[in-house]
């Protein structure tokens, strides 16, 4: 961990967002992760994304399971409620919390051990349930807190720090999410803030579960020669297929892109995602094609990054399917929930 405590007072010249808040006001407590940990870069991107969205800190709910990645929810947006739950079970806490109050923005931060091993069932069903949340996996292929065992995302042939070679096939969260019908699937790299920030913003505004797999190297246990999740290997093998820019509602699309190069995807809250295809054959709205493309690239050891799949026309978001009202369930007055004495008296006749 780094030991430099930042001063509590922000410099008056720091830029503010529309709420008059500086980036510092979106920070959390000091990270206790190893210096150089990819997760800290992801935390920085989340802070940037929330600040840029002009999100009221209390409108955010941060959820996580157990592991290095799950600790990070304490390191951003101190003004938001956080819930560091049990290993692999963040998704169910998020599902229940979201059911109770649909009016807040939910971000779940998890890791490859938390989401692809012990919690894979909960991840799968959160996607199936299409809970309106951003589900971020900080993927480093290794268990850090227990000193470097392979996780379920470790590639075949990758080498552990102590020399073991992984022989089991990896579970790729992107392919998994695509097969399950996720309506927003992205991959990025902790070291690519320019790509990651708009993805986080778009994911938070997506009406349904947005999954972002972030390759986030572990400097202590998985950053060596022979590892396929090291900084060096990731930088060499990541391949941006599609870039996304996030444009908030009511903001004019100022950037001028060459015709045919850019696609605008409107989101339900009025914001837009501008997609720039770096590979002309790639269509992120075609799930099957996306799957084939990602899989073929993975076979060549290429991690395709960017907004891999988006479907803004989908209508399977949890609250929509369950026909809950626009107002949060936790805010409905008791008088409207309890049928009262007269109804009970009338009901008794059915039981005679």
């Amino acid at each position, binding site marked *: 961990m780094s030991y430099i405590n930042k001063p509590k007072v922000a410099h008056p010249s720091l830029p503010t967002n529309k709420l008059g808040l500086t980036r510092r006001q979106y920070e959390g407590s000091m990270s206790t992760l190893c210096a150089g940990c990819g997760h800290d870069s992801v935390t920085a991107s989340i802070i940037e994304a929330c600040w840029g969205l002009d999100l009221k800190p209390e409108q955010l709910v941060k959820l996580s399971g157990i592991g290095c990645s799950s600790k990070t929810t304490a390191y951003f947006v101190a003004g938001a409620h956080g819930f560091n739950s049990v290993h692999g*079970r963040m998704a169910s806490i998020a599902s229940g919390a979201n059911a109770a109050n649909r009016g807040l923005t939910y971000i779940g931060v998890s890791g490859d051990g938390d989401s692809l091993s012990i919690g894979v069932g909960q991840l799968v069903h959160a996607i199936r349930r299409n809970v309106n949340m951003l589900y971020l996996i900080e993927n480093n292929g290794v268990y850090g807190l227990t000193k470097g065992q392979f996780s379920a995302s470790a590639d075949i042939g990758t080498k552990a720090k102590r020399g073991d070679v992984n022989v089991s096939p990896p579970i790729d969260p992107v392919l998994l999410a695509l097969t399950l019908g996720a309506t927003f699937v992205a991959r990025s790299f902790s070291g690519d803030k320019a790509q990651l920030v708009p993805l986080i913003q778009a994911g938070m505004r997506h009406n349904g579960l947005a999954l972002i797999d972030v390759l986030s190297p572990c400097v202590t246990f998985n950053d060596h020669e022979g590892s396929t999740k090291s900084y060096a290997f990731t930088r060499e093998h990541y391949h941006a297929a599609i870039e996304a820019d996030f444009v908030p509602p009511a903001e004019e699309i100022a950037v001028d892109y060459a015709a045919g190069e850019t696609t605008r995807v409107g989101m339900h809250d009025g914001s837009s995602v501008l997609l720039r295809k770096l590979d002309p054959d790639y269509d992120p709205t075609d799930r099957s094609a996306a799957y084939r493309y990602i899989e073929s690239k993975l076979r060549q050891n290429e991690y395709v990054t960017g907004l891999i799949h988006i479907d803004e026309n989908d209508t399977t978001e949890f609250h929509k399917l369950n026909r809950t009202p626009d107002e949060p369930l936790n805010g409905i007055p008791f008088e409207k929930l309890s049928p009262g*004495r007269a109804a009970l008296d009338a009901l008794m006749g059915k039981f005679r």
Partner: protein
Amino acid sequence: MPSLIANSDKVNDFVVKFANVNGTGSASANSLIMKAIFRMGVPVTGKNYFPSNIQGLPTWYEIRVTHNGYAARATQVDIMVAMNAETYSRDVRELGSGGHLIYDSTWPRSSLLQRSDINVIGVPLARLMNENFDGVRNRILLKNIAYAGVLAALIDVDLDVVNSLLGESYGRKPKLLDSNTRALRLGYDYVKQHLSCPLPLRVERSDKTRGHIMIDGNTAAGLGCVYAGATVGAWYPITPSTSLMDAFKGFCERYRVDPQSGRHSYAVLQAEDELAAVGMVIGASWNGARAFTPTSGPGISLMNEFVGLAYYAEVPCVIFDVQRVGPSTGMPTRTQQADIMLCAYASHGDTRHVLLFPANPEECFYMAVQAFDAAERLQTPVFVLSDLDIGMNDWMCPDLKWDDAYRPDRGKVLSQLELAGLEKFYRYVDRDDDAIPYRTLPGMSPKGAYFTRGSGHNQYGTYTEDSAEYQVVLDRLKRKFINAPKYLPRPVMIGKGTNEVGIVSLGSCDGAIREALDILGRQKITMDYLRVKAFPFNTDVENFLRSHATIFVVEQNRDAQLKSLLTLETAVEKSKLNSILSYSGLPISAQPIVDAIRAKLAEAPRLSAVPH
């Protein structure tokens, strides 16, 4: 016809048992008869002994006609409606001497005649159905209604009452109503023409069911959740708790759908497993909704880790455990009270939990409401320990009542205004010296934000590995648990309280114990009876244990779990406690309790409970 074997008249006091094949539609015929008797003003109880299977296995239904209103299972069967050839021999054996056997005489059953001490009544039901109706499935279904007609004639159930019940069931389906009415009549008329009716065992109109309903505990609990204002229910289907969520959903569809918009002021989440189900409940409760999950023993086993989190992070949640027979998968369709210890100390580390013990469906309704109040007041998991007997069987209960003045106790949740008045908010500080801290809900303001965690935390809500800081929180949790009884229902005491001998029990043992007390009373043996309704035990329990020299602890499990809990959590001397255990999977009945008490008291004749 054969002359009846002499038996004393048993008006409004006998047991009819139906032996059927499951999946053949017998349940509706059996409940038709039960409901008709109930409507004639005569108390009844129904016990369903069914297999963990969808179709083709033996199933039994037992109706106890009981003018005394006893809720327990009777041990003797007076009339056996033997409709399952596979279980004939066993069913015939079970019939009490002088009892009546009703069977389908379409085919000869010579083995039925082996017992000379019973009355055999043959009715050619299959032949009657074949002669009057088409379709194999139709004939099978209607044969059930036909035996209901047979029974109605034999025990003098008012046919008009049965017909009006049929009308209520099939009112919108005239063809079905017609065939059912005809089938009922065919059975009824056959008996009237060929046999002398009614039997000495018969139903006579009374007025003992006024102000009462017939309801099962799961339905009542589901209704209680609606009345308590629960908005989120999460669950994974498991026998015998499934019908609780079915009921909640059904009542929500009736009461919680906005007629204009069609929007639902509730959400039912069918989870992928019980781990997720309780996780959802914790997430929703943490976020300010009243949320619950119904489950049974195997589900509780899976939920353990999360229960510990809710305990330590102090998140309210309501868990209904409709207990079934364990261990492991056990017998899913049989009843037991064997999850007491599991729930009391669920999860690793030092944990103790609040338990409520409903004794019947009526209490399931009220305790559902109390469970939410207690969970939110105490910020902790609350288990409602029902069982299959309460949850799935129809019990006669007083009408459920509601006070419109009731408002939920949402506990110490800071309002926006209260929060603004604080200099700083700390999640786990004991500001009121009652061991209960204040909480805030997400979405209020950055000032109220805190970080919920199952890892070591201090009273300010931040991570700690400091021994002293950790212990401050853990010690307060202990105080909170010790203080809990003031928010929980007190035990029920029956008797003068001055007897030397007492009974302590819980939950669905209640009916059998009350009946046993009546039997013992007629034998001039008197004792006090205390039924615990909640854990942790309050001082009433402690006092009762102290003031009785000999105590019988009646419960439905092998390992005397209530007795164990009493020994661990009160000052009682272990040697004073005598267990009476029933763990066959069938609901406990009165006679074994009477026998056990008499046997024990005979060993110690000095006790005042024994008549001199």
